[in-house]
Each structure stands twice: as structure tokens, then as C-alpha cells.
């Protein structure tokens, strides 16, 4: 069974088209991540799936049922928001139980499910506190708990970690991955942090300007991007795009090389001068200005004593290079 199917979904706000012809399938138990630059329509797509916005046209089906005219509460979804969105007047327990009370579930079921979620998320000590007395990470866990107790067919996360600090973000990321394994539930997760996208996803959906650019597993997208946008969006530091710096490259073709695929060499197809060095301990990032005035980044494993101003030559294996035409589409030479 498929958790979610979108067919030609469009959404406009007045004249402005925000989503254009989205087609997408989420299989049962799949973890799908939407990524894309700010304003590309990720949240809007999530809200259309949740039923908080109506699709202007197209079909949304969840768990096999067309839900275009079903209110959010009846769609079998649960959503976790970036701003937590906990009910300020209710305790942690009240926050989690409210949805079930609205569904008129018997008290025993409510107690049992809340207890299970509390145990899973380690919230036992805070059960009677108000949201205002919790830290950011605890609040986000309560918000996740509120989603879990409803046992939805589909979880929706809208940038749930972006208000947390770096360490907490990493912990919560692992917790979410863990949760996905334990519940084996279908999840859709919106982020513009590509580490989250790469580490969590079974399938990544790259969006740009309301269109799906490419769909695939993280490694498929990394190894085989369909166009220059996807190539540049995934991977950190992002891919270098060189129009003229590579010796004997054909005209009108942009060569894309990931920073980790460049190596220092005695002589090579690229020459330039070091403009900046970032020593990270385990890695070294070297920023280079080529003799054709293009900027590129080299990522070297380990520590390297490069100096700003130094002239260097760079080489790469031809099979690691990508080629794009003037319309930014991938071409195979």
C-alpha cells in the first residue's frame, strides 16, 4: 500500500503559482525528505498534504483514499511544527491527549498511548509541566509525542529541528531516525539542512520554484544529479562549477567537480592561487582562485600546510566530473 500519492497537484495564492504540477509517491514506511531553497514551496506542499490549504487542482490520496475534501483531523496525519506550537494552557500530558480526546477515544486508550509515547521520548519527569516551563528540546519532544499518540498513517515534519542548537539538533535527529525504525511509519520531513536530508532520508525530493527537480535516494542524487541545481544543492562544501578553468574543456559546457574529488598535483588541468585556508583538523578546505578568475573549493583529508597566495595545481579523475550545458541540464560527454 502507498502512504501518499500526489497527482498533478497545483497550488496558487491568487495569481501567484506556488506549486506547479507535483507528482509524488510515498511508499509505506518510507522516510521522504523535501529539500529546496527558502521559498520554494516546501511548507506549502506539506500544508496541502495536511489539508491546511486546499490544492488548487490535482489529487491528494493518503493510504489509498482521496482526501481532497477531508478535513485535516480526519486525514490520518500528524504534524510537527518548527515553532513547536504546543497549547500553552495545557500540561505536557494534556497536549498529547487533546487529539485523542477530540477523536472520542476511551480513556484507557488515551492513557496507554500517552504513557507509551512518554516512555519512548523520555518525558516522564515533565508530564505535568506547562510548555512554558520546558526547554526547547523538551518542547520539541512533546510536539513529537503529540504526533506519535495519534498513530497516524503519515507523519509530517516541517523543519522540526531548526530552532534547536547544534548539539541538540544532532541528538534529536538521531532520535527521529530511531523513532522511524521503531514505528516503521511513513514520514515526510521538510528541511533545508542537507545533513539532515542526507542522513535521514530513504528518498529525497529536491524542489525548486514549486517544481520537483529530482527524486531519488541520497546516494543516487549525490552520484547522479539530473541537473546543475541538484548537483550544487547536495553535498557540502557544494560542487565547483567551472566554465573556463579546466584546460581543454569543450565550449559552452560547465564542468562540475566536487571539492572532495580534487587533488593537489605537480601539474594538472587546473592552476590557481590559494586565497583562503580553513583548517578543520580532520579536513582542510582550501579556497582557490584559478588563473581564469573562477573560485573553487578543494576539500583535502587531513591537515595541509598550504599558505595564502601559494600557486597550486589541481587534478581530478575524469569519471568524477559532471558536465552541464547552458540550460544547466546534465550532458554526458
Amino acid at each position: 500500500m502507498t502512504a501518499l500519492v500526489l497527482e498533478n497537484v497545483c497550488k496558487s495564492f491568487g495569481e501567484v503559482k506556488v506549486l506547479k504540477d507535483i507528482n509524488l509517491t510515498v511508499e509505506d514506511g518510507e522516510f521522504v525528505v523535501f529539500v529546496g531553497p527558502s521559498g520554494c514551496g516546501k511548507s506549502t506542499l506539506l500544508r496541502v498534504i495536511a489539508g491546511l490549504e486546499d490544492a488548487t487542482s490535482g489529487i491528494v490520496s493518503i493510504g489509498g483514499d482521496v482526501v481532497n475534501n477531508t478535513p485535516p483531523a480526519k486525514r490520518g496525519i500528524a504534524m510537527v511544527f518548527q515553532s513547536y506550537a504546543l497549547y500553552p494552557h495545557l500540561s505536557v500530558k494534556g497536549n498529547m491527549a487533546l487529539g485523542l480526546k477530540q477523536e472520542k477515544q476511551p480513556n484507557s486508550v488515551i492513557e496507554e498511548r500517552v504513557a507509551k509515547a512518554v516512555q519512548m521520548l523520555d518525558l516522564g519527569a515533565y508530564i505535568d509541566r506547562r510548555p512554558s516551563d520546558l526547554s526547547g528540546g523538551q518542547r520539541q519532544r512533546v510536539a513529537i509525542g503529540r504526533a506519535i499518540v495519534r498513530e497516524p498513517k503519515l507523519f509530517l515534519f516541517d523543519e522540526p529541528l531548526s530552532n534547536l542548537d547544534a548539539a541538540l539538533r544532532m541528538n534529536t535527529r538521531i532520535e527521529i531516525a530511531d523513532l522511524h525504525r521503531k514505528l516503521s511509519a511513513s514520514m515526510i520531513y521538510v528541511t533545508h539542512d542537507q545533513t539532515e536530508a542526507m542522513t535521514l532520508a530513504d528518498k529525497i525530493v529536491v524542489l525548486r520554484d514549486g517544481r520537483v527537480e529530482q527524486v531519488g535516494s541520497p546516494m543516487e542524487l549525490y552520484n547522479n544529479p539530473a541537473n546543475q541545481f541538484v548537483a550544487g544543492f547536495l553535498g557540502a562544501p557544494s560542487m565547483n562549477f567551472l566554465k573556463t578553468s579546466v584546460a581543454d574543456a569543450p565550449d559552452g559546457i560547465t564542468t562540475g567537480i566536487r571539492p572532495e574529488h580534487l587533488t593537489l598535483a605537480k601539474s594538472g588541468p587546473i592552476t590557481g592561487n590559494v586565497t583562503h585556508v580553513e583548517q578543520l583538523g580532520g579536513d582542510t578546505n582550501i579556497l582557490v582562485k584559478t588563473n581564469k578568475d573562477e573560485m573553487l573549493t578543494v576539500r583535502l583529508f587531513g591537515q595541509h600546510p598550504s599558505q595564502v597566495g601559494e600557486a597550486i595545481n589541481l587534478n581530478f579523475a575524469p569519471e568524477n566530473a559532471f558536465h552541464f550545458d547552458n540550460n544547466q541540464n546534465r550532458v554526458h560527454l
Partner: protein
Amino acid sequence: MSTARSNRFNTFAAHGALILYTLIALFPVFVIVINSFKTRKAIFREPLAMPNSDSFSLIGYETVLKQGDFFLYFQNSMIVTVGSLFFILLFGAMAAFALAEYRFKGNTLMGLYLALGIMIPIRIGTVAILEMMVQTGLVNTLWALILVYTAQGLPLAVFILSEFMRQVSDDLKNAGRIDGLNEYTIFFRLVLPLVRPAMATVAVFNMIPIWNDLWFPLILAPAEEVKTLTLGSQVFIGQFVTDWNAVLSALSLAILPVMGLYVIFSRQLIRGITSGAVK
């Protein structure tokens, strides 16, 4: 160093200005209250003197209380003020929520139409209002006053409250929708508590003019059993003789209920209860 000094200077200046303003604003009230405890002669001989054993007298209060209906006037004023505030806040908040939350045709136009009421004084329509009240048989009822004051207060209430409601997090309302709350529950349970300070502001803004109004009680409800306090006090002001003791005592008493209401609302104003709902 220099910023610290100028900061202290600023603080002093600000406090000085505020204290001065408070003194100026409270002075008439002070004069009214002290004179309400003096004999008529003492009021005119030395209006600014405190009452002493010679000049002290409760004659004003005795007159007021002997006038029998005074408690009724109090009650009428209270009903009108509280009733009007209730409807202003209820309907104002509902309209503000609709304007702030829902996209529908004519939303902006509706907002402008409601805002127009802020600029046009309702008293211009007095004659038409009186005709309507006569036709609906509401003349000489408290409802006439409550309806008019509600209409008078709504524009500003909608304007202020919709601005605040726009700031209530969309995520919170959406979380409620996903949990199956209906729009009324979202409005009453989630949104209203978060805009409580704004509601208190609106209540305070509207309360004093309603309590003090003489115009509409005189025109719409002058009958004895529906007189408001302000109108009732007028019996002591005659064309030829004015019973100043009674007038001052009545005014002093009239201050008390509004002060009570103000204390209630201002506590809401200060209580910033909402932190922690959203980040």
C-alpha cells in the same frame, strides 16, 4: 561612562515628566474628593484646603444617599458599561479573527469599512439612532445604550485586535486543526488567551467614555428607572441653585466602580501569560 550618566539623566527626566503629568491629571480628582467632605461654606471659602474639624461634613453624601434611586443609577451604569464592554470584546474579537485568519473576497474592503468607524463620530447619527430606537421600542431601556455603545466601540476594537491576532502563530492554530478542534474552540481556547493584553487595552479605552457619557442616556434613556449615574447626578445641578456638596459626593462615588474595573483589566494587561507557547 558618559552613557551611564546620560542614562541616569534620561531616567530622571522621564520620571520627572511622568510624575508631573500624574500630579496634573490627579489634581482635579483630588480637589473633588476633598471638597466632597466639606461644608458648603468651606468649599467656597477655601476650595484647596483639606477638611478639618470645623469644615468637615458628610452632608453631600447624606443628600446623595437619601435621593434613594442612587443605587439604581449605579446599577444601571454598571450594567450598561459591563454589558457594552462584553459585547465590544466578544464581537470585536470575532470580527478581528475573521479578518486576520480567513482569506475571503472583500476581506480588505471589510477591514477598511470597519476602520472607517474610527474616524466618524457616532453622535452624527443621533437623530437616526433615536428614530430607530423609537421604532423598535427600545427607548428608555438599557439595551438602547448597550447597543449604541457596542456599535461605537467596535471599530477601534476590531482594528486593534486584528492587528494582534495576526501575530498569533499560524502553527498553533494549525496544530489545533490537525488535532480536530473546530474553529470556535481554536478561537476561544487558543487565540483569545493569547491576545488577552490587547483585549484589556480595548476594554480600558472604551470603559471611561461609556461610564461618563451624558449624551446618549439623556436622549435615549432619560426615564427614572434607567437613568445612569452621570445623568442621575444632574438633578443636583439646577439652573439657579446647584447643590455642590451633593454633586461632588456623587462624582467621588462614581469614581470607585470604574477604578475597580480598571484594576481588573490592568492586571490582565500586565500578566504576560503567554511565553512558551511557541518559541
